[in-house]
């Protein structure tokens, strides 16, 4: 008995220590970034977040375009990948014949294993020419959307739209995998009850399955969003890396992660390095806010259902 409780105590201490490591590491990263980025934040104050000037020669730094680009490209990815991933998950759980489920699920999850730089290369050599030659002219001219601010300007391919599309493909497997598990966890009785009441299959999904799975589905979306916010390599290769805020999805942009990846190795002045560190801090804070928001959403949806 005595030895048993001793082992228990060791086990408890070990697991507690393991669990404590993660908040401690996040805290240390936060502190390290805050300390390293402080000179830039002190010098520029709020204008670091609101200014579009990024001039390493003149020593003026403002991260507004990068913050904007991170948020827009991630939101775009979520808008494209979210419904698609939900469709994939619903198909696999509710409609697909049994022999098809595993191969399709496996293929979707395989997308998550492709290195980011490979997505980037595919973006440069396949996606961007495709966008420039077909998709962008179709949107702008055939659908006459070229006069709207969202699709205006010259179509070079390299753009916010390309970044959003690449990110959508990259986060699709995460959202689809989580959604699939969540949908599978919906009790059979829930479905049978709806069908027994005379619901069609679609009504059963809409009224019985999706509401039950809602908080889990939101969690899946947020996992995807978190990944999109921090993705670096593939985005850097297709977004055009231009410090500007443009309403048009055809225009090039920048993201916080790309900015750090692009400039860190050659940043020599202390203020430049500090500014990049401050961008890292902003990215961490943004991710934190998004995750907190997701928790809150999940909590809200769980409560409203109860």
């Amino acid at each position, binding site marked *: 008995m005595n030895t048993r409780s001793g082992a228990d105590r060791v086990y408890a201490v070990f697991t507690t220590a393991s669990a404590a490591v993660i908040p401690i590491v996040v805290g240390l990263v936060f502190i390290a970034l805050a300390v390293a980025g402080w000179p830039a934040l002190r010098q520029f104050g709020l204008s670091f977040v609101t200014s579009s000037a990024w001039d390493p020669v003149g020593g003026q730094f403002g991260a507004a375009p990068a913050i904007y680009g991170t948020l827009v490209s991630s939101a775009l990815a979520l808008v494209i990948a979210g419904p698609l991933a939900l469709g994939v998950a619903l198909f696999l759980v509710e409609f697909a014949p049994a022999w098809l489920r595993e191969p399709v699920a496996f293929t979707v999850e395989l997308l998550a294993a492709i290195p980011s730089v490979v997505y980037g290369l595919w973006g440069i050599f396949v996606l961007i020419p495709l966008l420039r030659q077909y998709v962008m002219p179709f949107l702008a001219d055939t659908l006459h959307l070229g006069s709207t601010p969202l699709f205006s300007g010259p179509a070079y391919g390299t753009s916010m739209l390309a970044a959003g599309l690449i990110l959508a493909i990259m986060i699709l497997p995460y959202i689809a995998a989580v959604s699939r598990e969540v949908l599978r966890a919906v009790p059979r009785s829930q479905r049978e009850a709806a069908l027994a009441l005379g619901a069609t299959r679609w009504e059963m999904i809409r009224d019985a399955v999706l509401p039950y799975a809602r908080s889990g589905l939101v969690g899946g979306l947020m996992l995807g969003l978190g990944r999109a916010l921090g993705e670096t390599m593939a985005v850097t290769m297709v977004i055009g890396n*231009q410090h500007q805020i443009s309403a048009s999805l055809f225009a090039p942009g920048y993201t916080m992660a790309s900015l750090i990846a692009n400039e860190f190795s050659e940043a020599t002045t202390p203020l430049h390095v500090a500014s990049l560190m401050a961008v890292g801090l902003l990215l961490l804070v943004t991710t934190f806010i998004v995750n907190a928001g997701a928790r809150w959403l999940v909590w809200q949806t769980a409560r409203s259902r109860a």
Partner: protein
Amino acid sequence: MNHRNFLRAAALCGAAVVAACSSDRAASRDSGSVAGVALTGAGATFPNPIYSKWFSDYAATTGVRINYQPLGSGAGIRQLQEQTVDFGASDAPMSDAEMTNARGGDVLHVPTVIGAVVVTYNLPAVTTPLRLTGALVAEIFLGRVTRWNDTRIAALNPGVSLPETSILVVHRSDGSGTSYIFTDFLSAVSPTWKTALGRGKDVQWPTGLGGKGNDGVSGLVKQTPGSIGYVELAYAVQNHLPAALMQNAAGHFVAPSVESATAAAAGVAASLPATTDYRVSIVNAPGAQQAYPIASFTWLLLYTHQPNAAKGRAIVDFVHWALHTGQTSAASLQYAPLPPALVTRLDSSLARIQMGGA
């Protein structure tokens, strides 16, 4: 392979690594001779191909192993300042402020080879090399000349049918020595550029798209008709990119090449003052007829006082080797060798490096 065999193989590999490590340690203790000394350096990626070749050739003849990390010029300067490496390497000379922040004292800049930057473009209908002036390239990259059939471009290229299409500017998105050389040149030829943007590894590009690395820029240029960008000479040659003829200070239109880049350095080297620290720009070099105007040295950065005599001797010996034997292999990798007059002067500067304790 079954599990047990795999484990056995892994254990053998591990043992081999341990053995190699311990023999390294034994070798580096022997500090009397140059052979067996291991040097570390970090810095510019641009000269990495030629440096790698030098390090491997030099190790084969002398046994001195040099571990070079191509982390970028900025990282090279930082690590030299912190004395975490034995030497640094940079495509842009250190500023005075950076020099004073170096913990190990005075830093000697040793030019090793000359790099050139090529202005490349995508105009499918244009078959002869385009002729451009620095001022015009500056106007294009400032976003002020926006169409290919602009009269200023047409005036330089009589007989060439230029399309009406708009010009897409492609620049580097990552901080790079290539951008430094390019903007150094534009600052030298265009007062507007100098005041509005200046020179740097990364500037506030007013227009265009940013590509990461030479491959990113050339990928965008190759794919987009009507685009213009800049890449390193070696990269342009290996990928058969079209290269504009640039007007030099003497008024000639010169194609980028190893020879024309060396010619640019020769003109400058001849007029260096006796007290030079070699932190000189050779863009838009005056005088020489065949000088290509967008060229620059790349430098190795050494402390003029080497506290560890064995390492100090090894570094000086290597640099001397690179400036003489090493130069012969530069051109094959599309780096321009230094003019002989400059090598002679560098030899005497190297001889002044001090070794050992205070």
